[in-house]
């Protein structure tokens, strides 16, 4: 990245093990610039979610551990800290799969996000209003039990809930999963606006590569626990391999046909 601003988050060659034996990340280095959006792409099981959990510290609750390398947030090493401390520093992870507190109302969900009360009760109220400003739909549904609102509204609830913590860095894990295209569009529009207006840095994990490359100006590609590619989205969109494997386009730019599927084997070389 040319002329890059100071990073808010820096992963230096981290290695993650689960249950002390299963090596999931084998040296991952990522930088998120202050006030930037960075996308993390990769297939299922590549280690994207693990990377996010390593940052937010949730890894420790799944018996995982950062065994090598370091994670720096605003110049401070955080990979040894507990998840609650990391959250207090201003990193919030939106776990994949719309994990609302399903027996609480939508508003109560948001209030739990304000649990840390940075800046006292008054700011919690202000932030609640702010969340309702970005997600007007949540205001309509605020008294409803979160387990029963629609999938899109649940996704909005968890993003809004994360916003309530007043984060400096938001780790978004597949916000598009299982949602209708129109809703995905709506949610990503709001995320982009949040990023621009509130100055929140975002590390975005997505399977929907096209979408991710449109939202984030810079992206990393993760395969089998290693970063295999990283570049600006402009250039990644032109990359043959990305086109082939993630965007499903042929060289000419048209839709890929099943006939060309053999290419897959040839192209896969850098993936292993």
């Amino acid at each position: 990245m040319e002329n890059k601003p100071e990073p808010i988050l820096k992963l230096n060659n981290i290695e993650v093990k689960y249950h002390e034996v299963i090596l999931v990340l084998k040296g991952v280095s990522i930088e998120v610039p202050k006030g930037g959006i960075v996308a993390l792409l990769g297939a299922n099981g590549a280690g994207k979610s693990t990377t996010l959990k390593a940052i937010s510290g949730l890894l420790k609750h799944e018996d995982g551990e950062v065994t090598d390398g370091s994670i720096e947030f605003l110049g401070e090493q955080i990979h040894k800290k507990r998840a609650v401390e990391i959250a207090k520093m201003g990193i919030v992870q939106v776990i994949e799969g719309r994990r609302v507190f399903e027996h609480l109302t939508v508003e109560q969900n948001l209030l739990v996000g304000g649990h840390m009360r940075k800046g006292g009760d008054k700011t919690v109220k202000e932030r609640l209003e702010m969340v309702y400003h970005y997600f007007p739909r949540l205001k309509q549904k605020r008294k409803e039990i979160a387990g029963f609102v629609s999938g899109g509204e649940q996704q909005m609830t968890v993003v809004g809930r994360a916003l309530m913590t007043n984060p400096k860095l938001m780790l978004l894990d597949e916000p598009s999963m299982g949602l209708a295209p129109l809703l995905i569009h709506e949610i990503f529009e709001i995320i982009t606006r949040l990023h621009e207006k509130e100055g929140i840095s975002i590390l975005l994990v997505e399977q929907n590569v096209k979408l991710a490359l449109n939202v984030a100006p810079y992206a990393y590609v993760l395969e089998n626990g290693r970063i295999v590619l990283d570049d600006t989205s402009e250039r990644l969109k032109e990359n043959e391999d990305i086109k082939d494997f993630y965007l499903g386009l042929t060289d000419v730019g048209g839709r890929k046909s099943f006939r060309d599927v053999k290419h897959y084997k040839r192209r896969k070389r850098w993936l292993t």
Partner: protein
Amino acid sequence: MSQTNLFFMTLTTGLMVGGIYALVALGWVIIYKCSGVLNLAMGELTIIGAYVTLTFYQMGVPFVLAVVISLIIGLVLGILTERVFLDRLIGEPILTVIMVTVGLSFFFRGLVEFIWGTNTRVFQPPVFPLKPVKIGFLVIGSVYLWSFVTAIVLLLILVAFFQYTRWGLAMQATADDEMAAISLGVSARFVYAAAWAIAFMAAGVGGSLLGNINGLNISVSYLGLLVLPAVVLGGLNSIPGAIVGGLAIGILQNFAGAYLDQYFPGGVKQIFPFVFMVVFLLFKPYGLWGWERIERV
């Protein structure tokens, strides 16, 4: 006494005692909800609280103040128990934790017998006037009435705590999805400790009230077992369920005592709630309001 009169008297007394059960059951449900631990030491928590209240009352402290002191000691003991015995077990198989609560129940029981002995003690002088209260045609022992009022007030305070305070919401959130709660900066360790503290406090008050009714000895901890049919009835993780379950068990127990005792003399009052629990489980394994996990289809 006429038949209808007997019926209504049994109903009211049952309801009043049920209020106490509801309070203890709520304490039990909180621990189950927040940490998934089936606490088999609940009965011992009730006698500890009851004995603490009794000791201070005997020293001349007014009853209300004695209960408050017992609440504070319950708070400290609850946090201590969680920190000393259960904190290091977080992440271990849940059966291990349940077995530890069995161990805890023996430990507490031993402690109580060691400190306070095994003789039955009564609150002397009686806390509540011996003269019964008359409401319409109902005659209720004032100890029952006041116990009920106290239990209901505490229940309301607890329910309000869960619905409206920051920590109450955080505890409910942890019960729903611990990982998501942690990601928002909710300390799970604090939630567990708070759950145990609340359970200790609720059980302590319940025990003190029951001690006023029947006198106090180690067998009051039988109440801890009685909590099980109450929570099974309401659903293991439902707060309103625990309250309704507690009330229902109180009523059932008294009806069994009033109407079945002549056919099955002996302890039918004691075992009836458990018989009921077994039959009830056949038909509603999740209880009335237990979570079957909300699945949107």
